């Protein structure tokens, strides 16, 4: 448990570069325990970079990242994962030649081996499709199933915080609703803290307690999900022509 008032994840003045090109130009983000926080922004704004910087790839060149009060800015990536921060990365990055079950087991690398079957059960209850396809190779799953697998794999770590990079990308509306419902369930029942990157700003902001808007590597706006949804500049930039 984090001390009251202390955020679970805090980025302060984080700058990250690809070569000499700045992708994050001093970002401040706070996520409190039990929250769903959405991050929205245009293509190339730096959303995925922000998520990966939490994992040290790329590493923050300036600023500080704290998880549950601990400075993790310089920690090796796999050590960060051991603190029970999990992610479903951009592009899913499941292991294509390994079966669904094996993918999930790798996800459980940081968990107790004794909990394996309970954790598998939890994931299979959330995504019954994965149970039916547990012996299928990851690369032969449909896009939506792969997304479920990526999220399920992250959940195998029994995370305190889960980072989801565009979980609705390329999915049919019905499946998007399923994924978002799953996220809500995880948050409400399992008290999982969620940090969500989404192009689908309408859905994301409706689901999230709070949101951040990133423009060109800088946080330009923040507020409650409802509040951000009402802002005219957000409607113009991210919602117009989208879902009402």
């Amino acid at each position, binding site marked *: 448990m984090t001390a009251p008032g202390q955020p679970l994840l805090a980025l302060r003045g984080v700058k990250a570069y690809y070569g000499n090109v700045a992708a994050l130009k001093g970002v401040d983000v706070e996520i409190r325990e039990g929250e769903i926080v959405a991050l929205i922004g245009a293509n190339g704004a730096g959303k995925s970079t922000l998520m990966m910087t939490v994992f040290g790839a790329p590493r923050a060149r300036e600023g500080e990242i704290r998880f549950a009060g601990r400075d993790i800015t310089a920690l090796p990536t796999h050590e960060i994962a051991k603190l029970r921060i999990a992610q479903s990365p951009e592009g899913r990055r499941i292991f294509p030649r390994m079966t669904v079950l094996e993918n999930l087991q790798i996800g459980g690398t940081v968990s107790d081996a004794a909990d394996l*079957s309970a954790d598998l059960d939890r994931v299979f209850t959330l995504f019954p499709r994965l149970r039916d396809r547990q*012996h299928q190779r990851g690369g032969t799953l449909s896009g939506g199933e792969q997304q479920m697998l990526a999220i399920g794999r992250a959940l195998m770590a029994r995370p305190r915080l889960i980072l989801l990079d565009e979980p609705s990308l390329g999915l049919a509306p019905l499946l998007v609703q399923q994924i978002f419902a799953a996220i809500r369930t995880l948050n409400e029942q399992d008290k999982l803290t969620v940090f969500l990157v989404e192009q689908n700003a309408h859905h994301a902001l409706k689901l999230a307690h709070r949101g951040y808007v990133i423009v060109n590597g800088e946080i330009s706006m923040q507020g409650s999900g409802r509040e951000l949804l009402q802002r005219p500049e957000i409607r113009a930039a991210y919602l117009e022509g989208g879902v009402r």
Partner: protein
Amino acid sequence: MPREGKLDRPPDLPAALKEAAIAALVAFGLFVLLIGIRTDQGPTGALVFTTRFGALAAIVAAVFVATALRALFWRRIVLAFGSVAPIPIKRSAARLANYAAAAFLGFALLVPIVFYGNRYLLDLGILIVTYTMLGFGLNIVVGLAGLLDLGYVAFYAVGAYSYALIAQYFGLSFWICLPLAGLLAAFAGILLGFPVLRLRGDYLAIVTLGFGEIIRFVLLNWQSLTGGPNGIPGIPRPSFFGLPFNASEHGFAATFGLHYSPTHRIVFLYYVILTLALLTNWVTLRLRRLPIGRAWEALREDEVACRALGVNTTNTKLTAFAMGAMFGGFAGAFFATRQGFISPESFTFTESALVLAIVVLGGMGSQLGVAIAATVMLGGFELFREFHQYRMLVFGIAMVAIVIYRPRGLVATRAPSVSLGKPKDISAAAVGDARTETPA
């Protein structure tokens, strides 16, 4: 099947003829100097120029006809036998692989009994099993962990020299030296692993290639220890739990009341290497089911994702190198005791290439495939020994054919490492079969 439409269409004759003409032209260009013209040493010692245009024409014609036939009928053959096999066929294929593995193992066990009188075949058997074991070892690095290693022979050499030197200087027996040789080779594996941790693909291949050569050059030049190019002669032969294989009173034959025969030692050596190879296979299959083995495979698929899931990729890579190297070292120690003599000449890049070819042709990651590939390649070499001028030609054609028609290796199926409870659906049933103990 969407391709069925094409089956109904009559074969496209002009296109086939065009393709055949191009192939014939290429064949002509290739062979006009190789076959069409020949120089021999004449009676006076001067070179005599002869032409063989008849043979050239025959080959070009053969290429033309073969290409035309292939262009006309290949699609039908492929469709008939189905590279897109429906599920029931695939399912029985998984079972077939299991039977094949069992049959293969049974045959391997019986070889010394069936071919007892045939020293030549026994030696060939030992050679094949040795390379199978090397293939299993390299398979851990290349097939499972996905780290392309072109210098695997280095560990074979380290194992061989470790055994030779320890046995000579300290007079220890083969069975004590064997684990030491494996340990030293594993250490060499870690030594190689550290500098290449950040390298992938072609860069990794180049550095490992260099590593193999460095080890060979050290062996060549460290004269005082390794004897340099002269190698190490008189390496102790293995004994049967202390009983030497000779005609003496205390020898193996006398103790068991048999007539002394030099074949006893060959048979013993065969079973030693077979045991070592099976041990390697067993350990590999075990490891694949443990977290470390899964981490190797995941590393092959996506290193970044691995790290983000909490896999320590540094340790994972180093253990893969160390494990693969250790089995190479075992095989090397065996090689030294079998030959009784080793020199750097036995550990050239050709050996690395041969073992890598076995792993790749076997279908990376498949144990049965490695065993078959080793048998086919080394057996094939022997078979074509009489036609030694065409040996490399046939070898090359075989390689090209496999790469074209079985690009993922002879045995391309990958058995999953885990399965929960009873298989439930078709796909589960198919893979459930493959998860029994036999090498798959």
